[in-house]
């Protein structure tokens, strides 16, 4: 699978409260409503400027904090196709995969890729392309690839 999109770049320790504030966590909102609150407390312009297929690039420990799955869900509903970070918080990483959102930890790519640029990801072969540079990452094991292909853990289990 090839993913290509425009980059929204953020810093280190982007936590789940700024991605999806706690005040919405126990409200059962629609996908569009959730998308409209994505990254609300970090970048209030994000929901307006994000386009389908865009990519987030960030520093270390992306998604730290709460276990709220909506942090991954709201980004997916906002149109984000992949997140490349220096590192991910453990629960966010699981939530992203389980929501069918590609999450790739790659320090070099996370440092080099510039805000607003176009990045191409070859998921199955583990290659990120930016400018003239190529960054390699370990492709996911078949189980994780199939969860991503099915659009997340719940649809994956529905098909099992």
């Amino acid at each position, binding site marked *: 699978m090839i993913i290509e999109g425009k980059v929204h770049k953020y810093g280190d320790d982007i*936590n789940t409260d700024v991605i999806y504030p706690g005040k919405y966590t126990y409200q059962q909102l629609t996908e569009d409503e959730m998308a409209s609150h994505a990254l609300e407390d970090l970048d209030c312009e994000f929901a307006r400027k994000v386009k389908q297929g865009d990519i987030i690039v960030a520093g270390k420990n992306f998604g730290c904090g709460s276990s709220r799955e909506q942090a991954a869900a709201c980004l997916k509903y906002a149109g984000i196709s992949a997140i490349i970070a220096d590192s991910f918080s453990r629960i966010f990483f699981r939530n992203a995969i389980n929501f069918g959102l590609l999450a790739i930890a790659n320090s070099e790519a996370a440092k080099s890729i510039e805000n607003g640029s176009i990045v191409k990801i070859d998921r199955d072969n583990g290659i990120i392309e930016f400018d003239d540079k190529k960054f390699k990452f370990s492709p996911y094991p078949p189980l994780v690839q199939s969860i991503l292909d099915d659009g997340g853990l719940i649809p994956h*289990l529905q098909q099992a």
Partner: protein
Amino acid sequence: MGQTIAQKILANHSGNETVKIGQIVTVIPDYVLSHDNTAAISKKFARLSVDKVKNPQQSVIVLDHTVPPSTAQYANNHKQIREFVELNNIEHFYDIGRGICHQVFSEEGFALPGTLVLGADSHTTTYGAFGAASAGIGRSEVAAVWATGEMWLMVPQSIKIIISNTLPKGVSSKDLILTIIGDIGADGALYKSLEFYGDTIDNMTIASRMVLSNMAVEAGAKFGIIPPDNKTDEYLENRAKKRYISIFADDDAEYEKVLEYNAENIVPVVAAPHTVDNVVPVKDVAGKKVNQVLIGSCTNGRAEDFRMAAEILDGRKIAKGTRLLLFPASSKILMEILLDGTVEKLLSAGAILMNPGCGPCLGAHEGVLADDEVCISTTNRNFKGRMGNPKSFVYLASPYTAAASASAGKITDPREFL
């Protein structure tokens, strides 16, 4: 090569003799925890072609996050959860008023040495204080465990932390764990298991140990394990929900690193806005005006925490222009501090007593801050917007420091009061 506690618990929950670091194993957790998010999880569960929860005894559900409900939507969530509980014959259900899930789970004897617990809440790490391997997972994953009884996990590396000697007067386990997080960073234990050792831990109460395990996740940890001992067994006597076998690390277990701390050198600290690893001595921010003080939560809402606050506030008043909110972690704790006079001392000082529950910690339904207001809190997160308003500022501290700051109306070193 020997095995860590995390390796041993993951091995014996996945049918393996031993497991390697980095190995992915399919485990059957002893318990899976959920709270108000059970309403949303049950909708995910309904999408799976499964009639009922596979093992209702595995599920523990506690309503705590938005209790009592402040909106019709929250009330409807609770109603859906009660219906789900009834339909699936879930026996381990605790309705609003019993307390915060992590405290209730522990008091009711589900948190046991050698067990594996997964929960749809990041502070599920708390049960490490009883020698359990316990970690947060997402909502989809809980739905999957309800359907199948099992989940995949990666075997983590472990970091050993050894703490020696006695914490000085006015310094609590909250100062210790904040100091550690400040040193190693919010990602210092990312995907790793922390194991805590040393005579400081041996001499700590169960309540103080729970603070360490609870906050382990704020350094990114998967588990925050304290080897069980006589105190653990005493706490669990007449309480444990089932028989347990304590698990200890082998002498030659492999650790990624070993960190050593001298408790005598720990001073009162705060985590300043807006990250938990932004830790500085209280003296560096002393004098900062505070509008609201919170004492409570799954981190510091136990009887000893309120007694620490009462030690400071007995015979004193909170400063004019400062609000002090108390939210005990459980109904049992509330009863205990009512009967021993702690509540009376705190209310006499001007505190507001709230019902047991998550309270204002997560900004979902009460105790929200106004623009530009400052809160000093014994909770676990100070992220921007955490308490419901991105224009406010949260400092994390011990109950001693919170109480001293309530009395002075500004951030204050508690040692001045003791």
